[in-house]
């Protein structure tokens, strides 16, 4: 026995097809829109003060002059303290970073150029040559211990 299609069922099938079609098109449009601007993840942690990965230090970063613009070289002040807030002196800081969504590193090789006292250090030679999500990774060594921390910046 074969089932005889009733007109209502046919219409429902067609309706479903159309919904699927519309959904596919909407999805495609959304995907194009997403690709276009490649926005950073919504839940990106933009804090400028953080614990290092293993919790050895608390690190705060601040640009020496605001706003941070795409293009020119700029400097940052990095403040390193112990988790209970005592300034860490005689630290050496090395800088790395890049754009996770584009798979490339920093366009320059920034370096620590001065220890300013009270746990403050100057990093020079930072440049961002593209808008979007950048990572700034600091590796901090002091008192024979080292730890690192990654900051997210969105331009």
């Amino acid at each position, binding site marked *: 026995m074969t089932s005889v299609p009733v007109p209502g069922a046919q219409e429902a099938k067609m309706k479903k097809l159309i919904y699927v079609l519309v959904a596919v098109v909407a999805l495609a449009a959304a995907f194009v829109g997403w690709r276009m601007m490649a926005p950073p993840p919504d839940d990106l942690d933009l804090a400028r003060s953080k614990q290092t990965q293993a919790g050895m230090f608390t690190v705060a970063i601040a640009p020496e002059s605001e706003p941070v613009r795409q*293009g020119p070289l700029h400097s940052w002040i990095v403040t390193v303290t112990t988790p209970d807030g005592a300034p860490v002196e005689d630290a050496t800081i090395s800088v790395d970073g890049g754009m996770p969504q584009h798979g490339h590193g920093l366009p320059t090789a920034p370096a620590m150029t001065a220890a300013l006292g009270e746990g403050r250090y100057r990093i020079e030679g930072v440049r961002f040559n593209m808008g979007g999500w950048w990572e700034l990774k600091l590796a901090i060594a002091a008192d024979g211990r080292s730890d690192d921390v990654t900051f997210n910046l969105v331009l």
Partner: protein
Amino acid sequence: MRPRLLTTGVALAALLLAGACKPSNLSEGEARVVATLSLAALPLLPADPSNRVADDPAAAALGEALFFDHDLSADGSVSCASCHQPTRRFQDGIARAIGIGEADRRTMPLEGVAWSPWQFWDGRADSLWAQALGPWENPVEHGGNRVALVRQVANAYRDEYEAVFGPLPDLTGLPEDTSPLGSESERAAWAGLTDDERGRVDRVYSNMGKAVAAFERTIAPVMTRFDRFAEAVAAGRRPEGEAALSDLELEGLKLFMGEASCVNCHNGPRFTDDHFHNTGVPAVPGLPPDRGRADAVAKVLADPFNCLGAFSDTTPEQCGEIRFMVRDGEALERAFKTPSLRGVAGRAPYMHAGQIATLEEVVDHYASAPEAPSGRTAIEGFVLTDRGRMALIAFLNTLEPMDGKASHVGQAPQEN
């Protein structure tokens, strides 16, 4: 009714599709990016502390004269303007430059060049004045030698030179053809000079570069149709009349900022990030391999005329570019400086050695993203339709100057 339902569905789908592709309006994010590309967003001309006459009009006037002077070449036939032709956006429209001989690379346009921290396709000069000292002694460009060049300036421009730089040193008694870079006999003659004599020659030579740099700082980017559009967008106005772009141009602009990701590198009001990228441009058969930035790092560090050298007018602290440049790594291999795209439609052929003849082929190159001859290409490729190709090119054409004139030469606002 079934057919009606179907038509409605298809119409709805088409509408959605059109919403995604037909660029009737810019999204908020797109409008923000458009504003950053506008000429109105051009920052003040960056100061050049390594050149104390960078913004001296008398130095610029002398530099302009030197720029057009054919006598500063081996056979009196070549000036900077032979290749950097003011009526052609300061370039020459050929694949590889021709001076005394044929160069391995294409002449670069000079519009807005003073905003760029690095000079040459590979950035082997860290200032405009250090750059200018290259072509005069390059055997395939001017083919000159240092002592003859300096003497020529002393003879032809004594007053103008001394008004800017003070008294010319005594050059009498120096051998005729003498240079640290020239033929064997020129180099031998250079080696025979005393340190003091070499210093005097180099001082005048570096000042020639500083005067030319002062002139080049006046070659500023000019208003384009795109800038009219971008200004309206930035101000939150609806671009109308002259400021409006066609549907096709808008579609190209959206592609440029979106799926084609051109704006990743061609960004800011000059459409360049001033950085070096390997974009998989093919090598030129018959020419020696060109490693671009990978070979330039050692050259800029060894250049006696760099920002850190004895002829620079500043302290090392001010030489951020060279101090913090990336010195090694795979990313430097065959990486070349991102060119500005202002006026690009009017100056084929393209790329560092004129490898690509037309904009159509440029766009196809980016869509297909071929492997690089050496190193790794940064280009990922994208899906390109015939309409997309037309749109991108239509957009690039909106970057032509409004009045069809050559680049504007005039004093740009300075940063102090």
